């Protein structure tokens, strides 16, 4: 390979430079057209009143201001925060327990892993359709089961048809679908823990729980932190399940950020306003990503 010359400058080989740009050209062209331009264009549109027709007036930050007095938007934001608070901790705990259990090397561990992971790769459309039937309050298997264990008819949840039951129902499906994915990441983290630590702890007479809380959990914290960030980001992008299971309803009960962006943008063609909402989402995820960068440095130090 090329080495820096005496002046410390890298000397490029001409044939390599040409080849480099040629190899990069297809992906760079696509990246430029479908990623880079949209990123800037989206922000500009969010400052206009563009509604899909010719008219496109610059209106400054008006969209952003009216967003925060738009009750519908605020409800979707509130729902999304509830969704995040409900799904993230439970998914992480569930995934961690699965990973630790699979990692014990118990007979059939690999087969268990296979089953736990499967829901993740199935489409949200298919999964949403199945669960909609399972959640049917009158005749669905879930309420049939609750009935058979003696739950009185009036206290049976209305699930997707009730304003209080719909969001929890979607949350259950999301936890069920995503746990296997985070389990895989946890398993990768668990592989990185030195086995000798456990052996040493055993010599000192440490029990299972002590080992879990004193060794596994602290040493796994960088992985847990990464999963926390990933799952929060994912929870702010939920759309498919909502669209299939509830369409944001009943009423506004399960309307979330991306669903709102979709409706404003592609149902009402308010591209300017929807772009402002989309950039708000962008900002949320940017902040979380910055937290990740800062936090990662912290974890790397404490992990030494």
């Amino acid at each position, binding site marked *: *390979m*090329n080495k820096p010359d005496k002046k410390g400058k890298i000397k*490029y*080989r001409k044939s*390599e*430079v040409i*080849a*480099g740009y040629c*190899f*990069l050209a*297809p*992906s*760079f062209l*696509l*990246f430029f*057209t*479908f*990623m880079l*331009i*949209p*990123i800037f264009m*989206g922000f500009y*549109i969010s400052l206009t009143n563009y509604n899909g027709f010719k008219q496109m007036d610059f209106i400054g930050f008006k969209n952003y201001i009216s967003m925060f007095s738009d009750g519908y938007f605020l409800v979707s934001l509130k729902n999304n925060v509830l969704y995040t608070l409900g799904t993230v901790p439970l998914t992480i705990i569930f995934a961690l327990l699965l990973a630790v259990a*699979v990692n014990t*090397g118990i007979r*059939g561990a690999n087969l*268990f892993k296979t*089953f*736990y992971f*499967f*829901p993740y*790769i*199935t*489409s949200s*459309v*298919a*999964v949403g359709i*199945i*669960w909609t*039937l399972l959640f*049917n309050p009158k005749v669905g*298997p879930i309420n*049939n089961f609750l*009935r058979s264990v003696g739950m009185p008819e009036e206290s049976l949840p209305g699930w997707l048809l009730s304003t209080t039951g719909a969001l929890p129902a979607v949350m259950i499906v999301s936890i*069920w679908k995503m746990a296997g994915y985070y389990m*895989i*990441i946890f398993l*990768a983290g668990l592989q990185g823990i030195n086995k000798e630590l456990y052996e040493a702890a055993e010599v000192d007479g440490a029990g299972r729980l002590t080992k879990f809380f004193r060794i596994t959990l602290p040493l796994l914290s960088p992985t847990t932190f990464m999963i926390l960030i*990933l799952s929060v*980001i994912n929870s*702010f*992008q939920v759309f*498919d399940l909502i669209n*299939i299971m509830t369409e944001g309803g009943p009423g506004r009960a399960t309307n979330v950020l991306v669903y709102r962006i*979709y409706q404003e943008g592609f149902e009402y063609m308010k591209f300017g306003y929807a*772009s402002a909402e*989309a950039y708000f989402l*962008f900002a949320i*995820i*940017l902040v979380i990503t910055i937290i990740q960068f800062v936090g990662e440095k912290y974890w790397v130090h404490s992990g030494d």
Partner: protein
Amino acid sequence: MKQIKKSKKDRITPGKVLLFLVLALLVVVMVVPFLWMISASFKNNNEVFLYPIRWIPDPIRIKNYYRVWTEIPFPRYYLNTLIYSVIVTFGQCATCSMAGYAFAKLRFPGRDLIFMLFLGTMMVPWHAIMIPQFMINKALGFYNHPESIIIMNLFSAFGVFLLKQFMLGIPSDLVEAARIDGCGEFRGYFKIILPLCKPGLATLIVFTFTFMWNDYLAPMIYLDNDRYKTIQLGLASFRSLYMTDYGLIMAGTVCSLIPILIIYCSAQKYLIEGIAHTGLKG
């Protein structure tokens, strides 16, 4: 010492039995919705919700499957999605491996800057840019044509990153030696690096195909024409059309899951490795 450990591992303790039972119960939780789907797909409408659930339908009726493939344009949705997925998958293999090669094995001004730009876009949520992306596609005349979801998916920062990392693990001496032998850059890439990248490419193929097969929102925005619709769109509209024909809907859902099941059974290893190594594709 080793022997003692081994015997300790093989011994069956009450704790292990309990753990096994809990894990098995969790398998039931994860799999039951799919089993219920399969069971319902072989039933008449009035049998689907009978309680207690009759897991093995009696009699087993296959008319739902017959209807799925004949009454609605299911074969077309299937074929469309297959075509889009295959084109995008192979296209990504080409664009991503070429970019990966440039980043991993070639030196040219601006290389690291461009790589950082690519990586940076991995943090941009697609939903944040779907509106301008839509406007660009429309301006290019791709709206309501499959070109839209094919072309914009030919770039993948994830794929570039994955293959670059993979190629960094291949010794550069191999490329150098080929250069000395008068082998051009393209032949070096095509004849030497690419064959050694097979596991990395396999991971990319599995991810991309699964993503394309399952993608819902992008096809929903772009493909209004029934001729071009994908399987997920077809499934969703089919559900709203046959609202209460439960057995039929479940049969359609089963069919839509078959390619994913095949991939899962044959290439699960690559999926799991890809996630474990990058943790980024979510």
